[in-house]
């Protein structure tokens, strides 16, 4: 099957029900997207599919054929994503960093749909787990980003 990932076409040899996560990581070697739970509980595997955040560990690859997939590797090619990354660095969000690919993807998806989200919208969208406890730093970064857009 053919997948469109980060604006490129890839021929992929995988069964239809293989989770997108493992196609991205193993078949294509794009390891920025992380495996954390395999059950859509933690969000470390978040990617964008047609601009919406999706947990790739439970997304069968056949379901995303013909759709535009964006992974963390291309996040800075997106104007919003680039701002998210810059703010993540500025706010020094990451600790171990393992969940942060997914956090950045979730943040980018929210801001692309809702450029100046309210606190409630941020709380509703930023639900990925972080065992290091970077939640407050993520909050600060999101507030910065929401303000940037509403100025």
């Amino acid at each position, binding site marked *: 099957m053919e997948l469109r990932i980060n604006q490129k076409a890839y021929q992929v040899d995988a069964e239809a029900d293989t989770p997108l996560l493992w196609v991205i990581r193993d078949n294509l070697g794009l390891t920025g997207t992380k495996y954390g739970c395999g059950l859509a509980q933690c969000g470390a595997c978040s990617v964008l599919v047609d601009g919406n955040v999706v947990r790739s560990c439970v997304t069968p690859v056949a379901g995303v054929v013909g759709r535009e997939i964006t992974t963390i590797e291309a996040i800075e090619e997106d104007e919003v994503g680039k701002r998210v*990354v810059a703010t*993540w660095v500025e706010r*020094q969000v990451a600790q*171990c*960093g393992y969940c*942060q690919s997914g956090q950045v993807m979730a943040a980018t998806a929210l801001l692309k749909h809702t450029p100046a989200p309210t606190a409630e919208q941020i709380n509703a969208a930023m639900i990925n787990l972080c*065992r290091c406890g970077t939640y407050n730093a993520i909050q600060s970064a999101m507030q910065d980003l929401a303000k940037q857009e509403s100025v």
Partner: protein
Amino acid sequence: MNTPIKLPQGLLDLASGEPINLSRRRFLTSTAVGALVIGFGLPLGSARVQAATSAAERGTQVPAFLEIRPDGSVRLLSPFMEGGQGTHTAMAQIVGEELDADPATFIVESAPPGEAYVVMENGLRITGGSMSVRMSYPTMRRLGALARAMLLQAAAEQMGVPVAQLTTQPGRVVHTASGRSLGYGELAGRALDMPVPDPASITLRDPSQFRWIGKPVKRLDAYDKSTGKAQYCIDLKVDGMLHAAVQHAPRLGMSVGSLRNQAEVQAMQGVHSVHVLPGAVAVVAERWWHAKRAVEAIQVDWQEAPADSTVRVMPADFSSDKHRDFLAAQQGPARDDENEGDVAGALAGAKTQVQATYHNQYLNHAQLEPPSALARYNPDGTLEVWLPNQAPDMFRDDIAKRTGLAADKITLHSPLLGGFFGRHFLYESANPYPQAIELAKAVGRPIKLIWTREEEFLRDVLRPVAVVKFRAGLDANGLPVAIEAVSATEGPTEALAGKQGEKIDPTAMEGLSGKAYAIPNKRIAQIYVKGPVMLGYWRSVGNSLNDFFYEAFLDELADKGGQDPFDLRLHLLRDNPRLTTLLQAVGELSGGWKRGPFTAEDGSRRARGVAMASPFGSHAAVIAEVSIENGQVKVHDIWQAIDPGSIVNPAIIEAQVHGAVALGLSQTLVEEAVYVDGKPRARNYDLYPVLPPARMARVHVRIVESGEKMGGIGEPPLPAVAPAVANAVAQLTGQRIRSLPLSRYTFS
């Protein structure tokens, strides 16, 4: 798509401790992104001489640690692992300060095993116990200063001027008189011919002149970790590698009998081979997903553990709740850890006696990165292993023991850790690398083994539990005159040893022992109870449970004696200016101590609790504000004052406080590893909740630099969180909190 990993041969040799020649001092090295760069190491010959003559001088083998590249960037091999706690950045600050090189120009990677990297003042090299910075600070400063002296000497020769006329500015040696200067990158080649100076000849920078130590220097890894570029063990790849997945025995100690459907599994899509391992079955495949799906399809007849099992056997009837009751029923004998004054006499003579029994819960580490290991046998018979670890020398030695290979035939790589919290110490039965090595040997190709989250939760070692019985006596003024705590427990160090040691396991008792309050008669004792659960170290270790017990019971004493808990603590610390200052600082930070209950602006009823802890060489005081929302405890704010003596990076400290508060709240509010019928109820985050963003509190941090000996920072901000919350909840609801987590309570 990944670049195959290569390690410079020079480092392999350094790691092995064999005599080496860095082939005219140039070696190839790989950067974090895999590009190959020619770098100049610093002189090794002289360092080797020194090592032979003054082996006791830790951290003086400059070339083992530092490489300065032609562009002036500095590659530092850190003795300590980076797992989020910011140690790699701190090492760059400390070395850079004395080397006179901006930490931003550093590339820091974890050093291989080897004597050269044993830099801790206690003679160890581990990443744990919140020890990395505090135990290596003077040594790592001196390392930077030694390297600077070598660069100065090299510049003196190159410029033909006396070294005394030279000075440095970040990344350059400067001859002020002539205005000439040379970048470190230009000098590194010549510096190779310089001997490492006598460590005694080195003068360290005056702390008042620090540019980077003590400043909120940005983390070196922030960008890579925000863009998916940071690579963890689970991400690594080498040529020809196959993937593996395992299915563990449902209970530790059981072994594989027969595989009922081996032929069918062998025929499944992508399967390379099926393997029987100690206590597990494995599938090797071209793709991990195939390996995982196939291994989960194997129907195994598991055999009960033999009587002579070498691992701790999990019985079929084990229940964590029943084990708690069993601990509570233990009468002794108890062994004293602290015994001062006359507890029995003081209790007998006390106006009021108070008794209470406390307990806590088992916990998983639940770090986000599931364990993995990559093993490769090379054609020359050497073995390379990539694995998450907090103690590379111990892991290499264990691999040597398991494989029969000499240590110098084993190369161990220590990638970034996707969280650790104590998970990546050497735990028999809880690490994937023995399986990866065995599989690599069996199939003759490199193997990367990833444990699923479910297999991880089945084999993770747990944070210990304890049942603590307190007795205390109050005098006529309601002040405590005696306290006794007897803990029925097994510490993680005892669990690893499989027995009680000559001395009490400090990791079992810390936080009950070592409290600073001036209570004249006290007895802190342990009833050692070996349990069936394999235990491990969990962020802040014994303090994670014991400070909860002690500080919550202290609030009971305050209430019984009609004392305010904040004032009582101040009273009991009246002769301890350091902790008095700290407690006052947190009071001030919170806008002045007020216990409540009170009505907040949003109309909710709230109360505050206070608690203190002195773990890992630092001291912490916490105030928590809580309300009850939909029957659950909501923690609104945590104020924390922390005194680590002196500091290296205030921004990273603040981040560590936030993180420790999150983990502290997690264990207080929601987390619990429950075993029923010998099996964990939860094998993923669905049934093992960890703190979600919605339950995080606002965190307010004040760093108090007392100037005392430097303490730790990764763990110390955690232990006082649970008791501060519990004390606030007790004040708000009138319900005593004598166990964790609070999700087991009903609040209205």
